């Protein structure tokens, strides 16, 4: 087991190198380099300052050298200086913003699991009954409603109409956590509920369930002990990538609720051609995703004894 995990962890390194190479190539192939005076919205620097800037950021070297230097630097956890915020190091920005996004993402994930999975179970047990339809409606809404619309809707509802929450945004007290968590979790709630329901329904048709029922086990015991354990494999599979996605922040939810997380950099760094920031957020996301996938694989073994990791 430990050997398996170690091997998988080592495999992440070539994966990240591949990701960084692809990102690097695409990024530099996109027009509008921070150092093209003729490109639209480019800076109006005179050539001398342009060269000084290029020297400072190492952009005067050939591309392959730039890439190797970058690889060498990130080995020492030096992600460079942000082009957009030239007074700040990318590392510092990530250190400040990532824990906040992770915190918010973890809360949203908890809500998604605590609400989504029971919802799916309820729907499966009451298949085609009224509860099933209510769950379906809820799940469909969760998937189809964009979270920034939902965010504004939540503000109108809970800040303006029924003033439970005192203000529209911020991140200075736990009361500020409520609405962004809700806004961020509704989509995952819907997805998890649908996955859980579908897989539960399938498991309930299996012979061993009929056997369990024939043995005289109560419905609750059948569902909890037999159906749920087998039905959880598909939801667990998506939990990993889902957490990687919401744990790195949502640009819209964070902007609207003034959450100082890293979500906005997924959009802003691309618009401003902030190369070091683009690389950092993509690598971070890639690493996060890889670790989550590994975690999911390990969890399989816990849930399903047939799966043996070696």
């Amino acid at each position, binding site marked *: 087991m430990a050997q398996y995990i170690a091997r998988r962890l080592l495999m992440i390194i070539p994966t990240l190198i591949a990701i960084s190479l692809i990102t690097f190539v695409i990024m530099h192939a996109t027009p509008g380099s921070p150092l093209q005076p003729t490109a639209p919205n480019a800076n109006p620097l005179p050539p001398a300052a342009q060269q000084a800037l290029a020297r*400072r950021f190492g952009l005067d070297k050939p591309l392959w050298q730039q890439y190797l230097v970058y690889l060498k630097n990130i080995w020492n956890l030096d992600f460079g200086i942000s082009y957009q915020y*030239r007074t700040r190091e990318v590392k510092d920005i990530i250190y400040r913003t990532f824990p906040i996004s992770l915190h918010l993402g973890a809360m949203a994930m908890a809500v998604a699991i605590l609400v989504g999975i029971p919802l799916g179970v309820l729907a499966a047990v009451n298949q085609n009954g009224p509860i099933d339809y209510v769950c379906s409606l809820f799940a469909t809404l969760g998937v189809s409603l964009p979270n920034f619309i939902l965010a504004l809707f939540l503000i109108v509802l809970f*800040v303006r109409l029924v003033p439970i929450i005192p*203000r*529209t*945004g911020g991140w200075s007290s736990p009361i500020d956590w409520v609405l962004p968590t809700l806004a961020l979790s509704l989509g995952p709630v819907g997805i998890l509920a649908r996955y859980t329901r579908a897989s539960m329904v399938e498991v309930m048709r299996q012979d061993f369930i009929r056997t369990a029922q024939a043995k005289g086990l109560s419905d609750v015991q059948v569902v909890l002990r037999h159906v749920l354990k087998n039905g959880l494999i598909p939801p667990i599979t998506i939990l990993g990538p889902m957490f990687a996605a919401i744990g790195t922040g949502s640009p819209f939810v964070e902007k*609207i609720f003034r959450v100082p997380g890293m979500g906005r950099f997924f959009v802003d760094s691309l618009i401003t051609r902030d190369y070091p920031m683009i690389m950092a957020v993509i690598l971070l996301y890639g690493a996060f995703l890889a670790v989550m996938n590994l975690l999911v694989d390990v969890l399989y073994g816990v849930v399903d004894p047939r799966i043996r990791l070696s």
Partner: protein
Amino acid sequence: MSDKLRWWEDPEQVSLLWKRLQAIHVDRRDFIRVVAAAGGATGAAMAAAACRGGEAEPTTAPPGAVTPPPAVTPTPPTAVGPTPTPGAAASPAAEGELAEQQVLRTNVEEEPQSFDFNKDLYAGGDAVVFAQLAMFNTNNEAVPDIAERWEPNEDASVWTFYIRKDTFWSNGDPVTAHDYEWSWKRQLNPETQATYAGFLYDIKNAEKYNNADPSVTVDDVGVKALDDYTLEVTLEGPRGYFPILAAYIAAAPAHRPSVEKFGDQWTEPQNIVCNGPFKLVEWKHDEYFVLEKNDKYWNAKNITLQRIERPIITPDAAFLAYENDEIDILYRAPLGQLERVQNDPELSKQMQKYNLYGTWYLVPDPNFEPYNIKEVRLAMGHAIDRETIVRDVLKGLGTPAYTMNPPGMPFYIEDTFPEYTEYNPDKARQLLQGTPYEGGRNWPSGMTLTQRREGDAEAAVGSAIIAMLKDVLGMELEHVIGEPRETYDRMWAHQIPLMWVRWYIDYPDPANTLFQVWYSKQPSGHRHSWANDEYDQLVLQANGETDPAKRLELYKRAQEIQLADGAAIYVYNPWNYALVKPWVTNLPRDKDGNFTPAWNIFIRDYDYYKILKH
């Protein structure tokens, strides 16, 4: 033109100033306003001509429209009054009791990159933390600030600024001439990589130094502190407008000891030292920043606000935050909420509309099919229902336009010329009879309506126009919303068949609209391709006419000729609105009483506001 101090009459100086301001992306409109503030109509006409990129031919200045330049002395002999003229609107007695805590809360739309305005004037922080040698009042005139006075030499190529002795940095250091000398040189140093250093190229050898020309050293740059309180600036030549440059935030100083100690980190709140009326005391990245009054600023005793809190709120969420009393001023209120604001008994009272003094209009270029047929152009004029557009699309934030000059401007033409502008679908269809497009058929394929990317309102009106033209005339137009600069370049090259475009007034005279936009023999280029000799003659004549009644008559005739030929279809005059809580009083207003929020040229509106008990 011998008097170089009357720089607004010197085409060379005006076009140089334009070049400087362009380097820092100042809006053409702001530029013309500034020149107009100094030189009246002559200056404004010069400025407008300079913007065209060509030589400012003295003849393009409408000779008759010249109001004698006001006796603006660019060298105020003594300091102006201690208060930056809070304007006529200030009547504290009638306003009620002031709050104990003078706190203003207003959002900023994005996380600032820094507060280092000396390095990048678009750094995004709040420019109020630094004070320049001069500043702008609400009428866009440059008045003394850190310099209590200044004087030029005979040909305005050397300027001497006398710095106040009673103003200090927020840490107690005196503000001296050395600060400005060092700061401007810092901006010009190519190693600083200051984005808008081109703004200072009027200073002798600045351009060479900024471009690392080996023939100059930093000591050759023409800015020199003669002593602690006297700054001598030697320029490349006569520049009567130099105090205007010295008033811009691009000429802001930086605090040398802080920069040398902290490098790029010097504008972080724990490091920064400010010389403006406010200082940065707190900045929680990606959340908010807080300013407090700098008691060491010379005019602090006349500034009422003590503290300014600026949460970072994206425009999408700012309106809700305003409604929830989290901010006191929302500078750019959303058009989508306008109807609600107007119908709300409370919000409607907090609305501060401001006239943008402009006209949105449609230009069918007669060099393209199908607009080469006059009847098509005229039919389009009758197919657009302006009242509906203003009422339903703009929700009343605007007025219907039938002619070029917007209402509220002198020589506004009251006549709407219904013969050409009345909404009348039957008449529109009749006009098509006998053309190849009779019955709304056979339109060429691939017709477009082109505009540059701007706000939602303008695009929405564009779509409404397309719908109306399809409805009445059967035209199938595709809405093209182009990249701003590229679209305007194509417009000036007369490559756009049907343009949906705006004109904002630069100075209050029809020479700015009917003459400058439509006179077809402009030496510096012609905005639209339509040309008519009789029209040209009338507007030229109007420029020289001194009798206002006759002048109005000339413009009216010219306007009618233009409408009768379907050269343009005027649609609406735009307005905008801010929301200001009732407890914020003493709003800065210009001489016409209009609210003047801080825009590109950085009028310091915080100097004015007072907060009432609430």
